C-alpha cells in the first residue's frame, strides 16, 4: 500500500518511474490530488532543496528530483481544476540578444521550477522586441534576463527602455544575472533586482512575489 512518505522519498531519490507509479497509486487509492502534490511531490523536492542549501546534496540530485516531481505532477494535473494548481507566479526567462550562453540561465530555471514557479524558458539570443512580445503573451510576474558578455549586457537596458515605451514596465518585475552583471549595473538600468547565482535568484523571485 503506497504511502505519501513513499512518494516523497521517490522524489527525494530522483526516481522518475517510482514517482509516476506512486502518484498514480495514491490517486487511485483516493488521496486528494492537491495533497499528493503538496505532501508528496513538493515535500520531497523541498527536502532536496534544503539539503542542497546545506551542501549535502548537489545539482544533479536536484535535477533528478525535479524530473521525478514533474513526472508525478503530470499524472495529477489532469485531475485538478484550472485554478487549483497554485504556482508562486510566472517567470519569463531568457538570455539576451546576441548572447548564446545559457547554462547559468538553465540552472535558474531549475531552481525556480523547484521553488514552485511556472517558468517560460524563452532560450537564447532573445531580442528586446521578443521579450516584450513574451510579456504580452504570457503576462509573467517576473522577467529574468541573463548575459555573459559586457557587450550583450547592454541589451538589458534596451529591454527595460522598450518595456517603458510600451507601458508595460509597471506590470512586471525585472531581474538580471550573469558573470559581468552586478547590483550596481542593475541599479543603473533600474532593474528590480540582481542575483549572483541560481539559488539566490529563486529567493529573489520569491521575495518579489511576496512569497519569501
Amino acid at each position, binding site marked *: 500500500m503506497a504511502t505519501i512518505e513513499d512518494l516523497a522519498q521517490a522524489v527525494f531519490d530522483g526516481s522518475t518511474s517510482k514517482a509516476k507509479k506512486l502518484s498514480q497509486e495514491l490517486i487511485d487509492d483516493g488521496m486528494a490530488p492537491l495533497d499528493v502534490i503538496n505532501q508528496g511531490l513538493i515535500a520531497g523536492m523541498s527536502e532536496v532543496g534544503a539539503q542542497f542549501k546545506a551542501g549535502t546534496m548537489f545539482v*544533479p540530485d536536484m535535477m533528478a528530483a*525535479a524530473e521525478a516531481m514533474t513526472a508525478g505532477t503530470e499524472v495529477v494535473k489532469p485531475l485538478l481544476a484550472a485554478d487549483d494548481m497554485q504556482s508562486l507566479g510566472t517567470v519569463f526567462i531568457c538570455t539576451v540578444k546576441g548572447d*548564446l550562453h*545559457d547554462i547559468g540561465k*538553465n540552472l535558474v530555471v*531549475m531552481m525556480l521550477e523547484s521553488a514552485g514557479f511556472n517558468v517560460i524558458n524563452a532560450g537564447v539570443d532573445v531580442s528586446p522586441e521578443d521579450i516584450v512580445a513574451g510579456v504580452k503573451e504570457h503576462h509573467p510576474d517576473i522577467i529574468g534576463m541573463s548575459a555573459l558578455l559586457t557587450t550583450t549586457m547592454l541589451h538589458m537596458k534596451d529591454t527595460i527602455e522598450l518595456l517603458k515605451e510600451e507601458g508595460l514596465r509597471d506590470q512586471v518585475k525585472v531581474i538580471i544575472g550573469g558573470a559581468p552583471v552586478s547590483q550596481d549595473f542593475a541599479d543603473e538600468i533600474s532593474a528590480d533586482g540582481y542575483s*549572483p*547565482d541560481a539559488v539566490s535568484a529563486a529567493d529573489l523571485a520569491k521575495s518579489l512575489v511576496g512569497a519569501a
Partner: protein
Amino acid sequence: MYRTRSLYTTAGFTVNQHLFWEMLTDDQAEAIVSRTLELLERTGIDILSEDAAKTLKEAGCHVDGNRVRIPTAKSEWALRCAPSRVTLCDRNGNRAMLLENNEAHWGPGYTAKEFMEQEQNMDTNNNKIRPFTIADVEMYGKLCDTLPNISFAMPGGFPTDVDEANAEVEVFKTLVKATRKPIVQNVKNVDQAKKIIEMAAAIAGSPEKLAIDPFVALHVVVNEPLQISAEAADVVAFAAGHGLPIIVSNELVSGFTAPAESAGVLMVALANSIATLLIAQLACEGASFITGGFFTNNDTVNELHPYGSPEISLLGGGYANVLRTLRIPSFGFAGGTDAKCSDAQMGLEVALSTLCSGISGTNVIHGAGNFESGCVSNPTVLVLADEIACETKRIMRGVEMDEDRLARGVIEEVKPAGNYLATKHTRYYFRSEQFWPTLMNRKRIDDWAAEGSLTLGERTVNKMNDLLVNYEETPLPEGVDLDKIAG
C-alpha cells in the same frame, strides 16, 4: 543515450592507469647507482660503530679503522636481499600502508621545538609561539588518527618538557595511545629502540606478532656525507635483527653536507643508504628496509636551509626515482614552509612539495606541519596538507577511459546547445569523478562574505578544532602497562 551492442574487445590497448611521472630514466638512475657503488668501493664510508665495522669486515669489506670500503658485489648483494615491499599495519594488526610501487603516504614531521598556538578566527598573523610539549604530541596523534589522507603518525615536533635522553620513548608512548595508525618513530640509540619495541610488542601481544604485523617503523637520521654514526648503525642492526622495519633518512644540505650538484647529492645519500642497507641485511637477510631523506639547499643569501624551496621537491623526487629503479621503498619530505605567518607562501610551499612527493611515488612522506623553516610546529599545516594530499591523489589517479566514460552516446543525446546537468550519465558519474573539497573555497564572493569572509587558514583552524573536539580515543588492549616499560 546510445551504446554499442557488441561485446567487443579492444586488443593491445595500453593505458596509463594512473598518472605517469618520471624525472630520471632507468639509464640515468643506473648511472647514479654505478658511480655510487664506485664511491663505496674506492673512497669508502666511515662507520663509527665498532660492532658494525666488525660485521662488515667479516662479511668481506675492507676495513681500516672507521673507514669501510664496500666491494660492489657486497652492495649489490644487499640490494638484492632488500624486500621490494614493506607493509605497515595499524595498532590492531590490520594492513594499513603498502610501501611499494609508487604508493604515496603522507604524515607529519618530528623536529620542531616550538609550537604555534591557534585560536578560532584569530588574526592568523599574531599567533602565539611557545615551546613544543608532550601534550602537543598527543594533539598530533589525534589529528593523524582522524585525518583521512594522513596515513601515519609522527609527533609533529620535539617535546621540550620531558627528559631529552628519553624523549623519543615518551613520544612513542603518547602517540600509540592517541592513534591507531602506523607510527614512524625516530630513535637516537639502541636503548630507546629496545624500550619502544618492547612497548609495541606488548600492544601487539608478542614480539613475533609485532614482527608479522608491524605497526611501527623505527627511523634514524644520517646527516653527514659518507659517515654513519655509531648510534644509527647500531639501531639499524638492532631493528633488522628484531624484525622491525627500519627507515634510514638522509638529512643532507646541498652545497654544505652534500655537493651543490643535484646528481652528487643523490650519490652521497645513496652511499649512506647502501651502507646502512648492508648493515641491516647482514643482521638479518631480508630485513625490511626503507630509505630516503629530507634534502634541501644551502641558501647562502638568507643563511638558512629552507623548508619550502623547490630544491626539496627536486632532490626528493630524484631520489625517489632512483629508489624506484632499485625497488626499495622510499622515504621523503613534504608539507614544510619557510613562512612565518599563515599566508599564500605557506599555501604554495606546502602545495608544491605535497604534489611533487605524491606524483613521484614516494612511499612514506613526512614533514607536514613544519613551519618557519622547521623551527615551529604548526598543526593547521597538517590539516591543510591532508586536503592537498586528497587533491594530489585525484591527480595521481589519472583519467579513466572506457566506452561509457568517453561518453559518445551522451554527447549525441545532449546535442549542441544542450546541457549535461540532468543526464543520467552525469548523475551516475559526478560524485566519483570529482575531488570534493572540505577546505578550499568554491563559494561566490557574496556567499563567502556572508559566512564571515574567512581565509583558508581560518577555515583550517576551525576544521582542526572540530576534529579535536569530536575525536574519540580507541583504548589500548587491556593489561598493557606502557609506563612500566618506558621507565
